[in-house]
């Protein structure tokens, strides 16, 4: 039997790796990759808590489904924005995206 702690430590590690990617990457697509890792870690936590703490309830699974939908929408809009910026600036470096600064 696997104790709950293993899943929680794994999810914490995955979340921190994703956070490092978000903070350290120059490329805007790389930042989105880090966000995907963080969302996955959260989903593992949600499902693990559902399985270990309240397998009779349904809340954990319902929240995980919502996280999936939000992740899909977020990636679609994020990549569209990056492609649109690339078309104007020929750059995907997050530092160069200063068109809204005045």
């Amino acid at each position: 039997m696997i104790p709950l702690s293993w899943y929680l430590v794994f999810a914490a590690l995955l979340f921190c790796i994703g956070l490092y990617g978000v903070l350290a990457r120059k490329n805007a697509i790389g930042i989105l990759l880090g966000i995907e890792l963080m969302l996955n870690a959260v989903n593992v936590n949600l499902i693990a808590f559902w399985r270990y703490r309240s397998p009779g309830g349904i809340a954990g699974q319902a929240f995980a489904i919502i996280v999936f939908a939000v992740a899909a929408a977020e990636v679609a809009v994020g990549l569209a924005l990056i492609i649109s910026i690339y078309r104007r600036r020929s750059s995907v470096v997050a530092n160069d995206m200063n068109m809204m600064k005045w």
Partner: protein
Amino acid sequence: MTVEQIIFLVVAVVTLVAAIAVVTSRNLIHSALWLILTLFGVAVFYVLLDAGFFAVIQVIVYIGAIAILFIFASMLTRRVMQDTGPQSNSNWWLGALIALLLFGGIALVLISWQGFTTLAPILTGQSGQLSQLGLALVSPDQYVLPFELASVLLVAGMIGAIFVAGDKKQ
């Protein structure tokens, strides 16, 4: 060591190594391919947690749609960051420090919680069945509102993506 534990440890190591490769690899296409391996590892965890439906969604939605979208986006924007120059910004050490501190904080909170090492209760009867989740998502006194909001969000995301990425000059 039971078989389950060995599977967990092997998959966890592979997933974490792949995740580190996602955030450090120089070539963005390689990053996206490592992301696919990470997502497969997470799908295995869903199977170990008796949530087979989520493993299937993970493979279809994450690997089949999101990872492919990433590969396409990095192909469309490839010329600029082609393996030249550093891929991480000058404050990467600060990011690593913040990530380590966050992990330390999470570990401290988890260790001081008494439910940390509980074992999984045995699934009985109705619990964990897919039909229950489906009914909960459409019954008015449970999750029908977040469910409908998620569908509105997906439509808005789709229309927004078409509008933002579409070529206006044509």
